């Protein structure tokens, strides 16, 4: 089938290495340009009328939080690709995304905490939003630990994929924790939890609630860090493919040595 052959073509690691080798410098270059431009505009924008200069933290905190969640969604999607379609690169993608997503989630927690102290008067509260993002970070650590604790690659891949798919429930929970959920035609009404964290100011049904002098720098910055995420992810995938080739060659070497020993013993 035509579709299958396209999928197979895209799944070929050698072809991926060639394509990613060309794309990677461009992704990294675009990321640097967008990040520098976004942060420059963010730092030259007027301070917020309520939060003053601490609004500068938003340009790194908000993209970190978005990318922490996007990273997990990418792992879940890759895990689905591995378990259902047995795509050869799906497991490579899931494994490469875990440390990057964990880093961005950790950064969302740290920068949020440093933003919270001057604005809320505390570094941390055990409310729904902060706690659910902390759980997301622990889920990342769980995925990384589970994979490294199992020596057999195929088994580790499958178990990690199952855990990733089970854990994906955390993503809507993070979103609902601050804003609640209302779907009248389904009769579904989930109230927002009590929290110090403000609701989303950008992605809202009634449009962004943030001034354009802050919105555009934030969007440029977020886009730049998204490019950076994919550049790092692509680099991580390339490393993983090389690691598996090294492993395969080492196993082949050991097999060859054993075969030679067996022939020598028989003679």
């Amino acid at each position, binding site marked *: 089938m035509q579709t299958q052959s396209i999928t197979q073509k895209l799944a*070929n*690691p*050698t072809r991926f290495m060639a394509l990613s080798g060309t794309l990677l410098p461009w992704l990294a270059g675009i990321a640097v340009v967008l990040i520098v431009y976004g942060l420059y505009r963010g*730092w030259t924008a007027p*301070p917020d009328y309520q939060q*003053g*200069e*601490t609004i*500068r*933290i938003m340009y*790194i*905190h908000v993209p*970190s939080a978005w990318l922490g969640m996007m990273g997990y969604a990418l792992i879940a999607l890759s895990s689905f690709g591995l378990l259902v379609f047995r795509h*050869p*690169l799906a*497991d*490579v993608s899931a494994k490469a995304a875990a*440390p*990057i997503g964990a*880093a961005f989630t*950790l*950064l969302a927690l*740290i*920068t949020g905490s*440093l*933003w919270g*102290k*001057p604005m809320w008067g505390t570094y941390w509260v055990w409310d729904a939003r902060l706690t659910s993002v902390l759980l997301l970070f622990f889920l990342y650590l769980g995925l990384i630990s589970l994979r490294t604790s199992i020596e057999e*690659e195929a088994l580790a891949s499958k178990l990690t994929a199952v855990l990733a798919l089970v854990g994906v429930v955390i993503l809507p929970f993070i979103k609902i924790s601050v804003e609640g959920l209302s779907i009248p035609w389904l009769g579904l009404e989930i109230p927002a939890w009590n929290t110090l964290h403000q609701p989303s100011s950008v992605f809202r049904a009634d449009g962004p609630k943030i001034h354009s002098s802050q919105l555009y720098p934030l969007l440029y910055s977020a886009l730049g860090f998204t490019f*950076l995420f994919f550049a*790092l992810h692509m*680099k*991580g995938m*390339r*490393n*993983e*493919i*090389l*690691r*598996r*080739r*090294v*492993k*395969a*060659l*080492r196993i*082949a*070497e050991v*097999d060859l040595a054993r075969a030679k020993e067996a022939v020598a013993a028989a003679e």
Partner: protein
Amino acid sequence: MDLGPHATFIIASYAIFTLVLASLTAWLMYDGARQKRLLEGLQAKGARRRPRSGETESTQ
């Protein structure tokens, strides 16, 4: 640029953010160079992978 009374929090945020992302990038670059060196070393020694039946290319 005067960052006001909360300058420490703003500077600390950016410093930690830069440190974590720079460390992650450096680790990925180092890991990539290491795997490439190992692979080239094995290939130079003449190591070759035996393809499995019906297989042309794989990540394993």
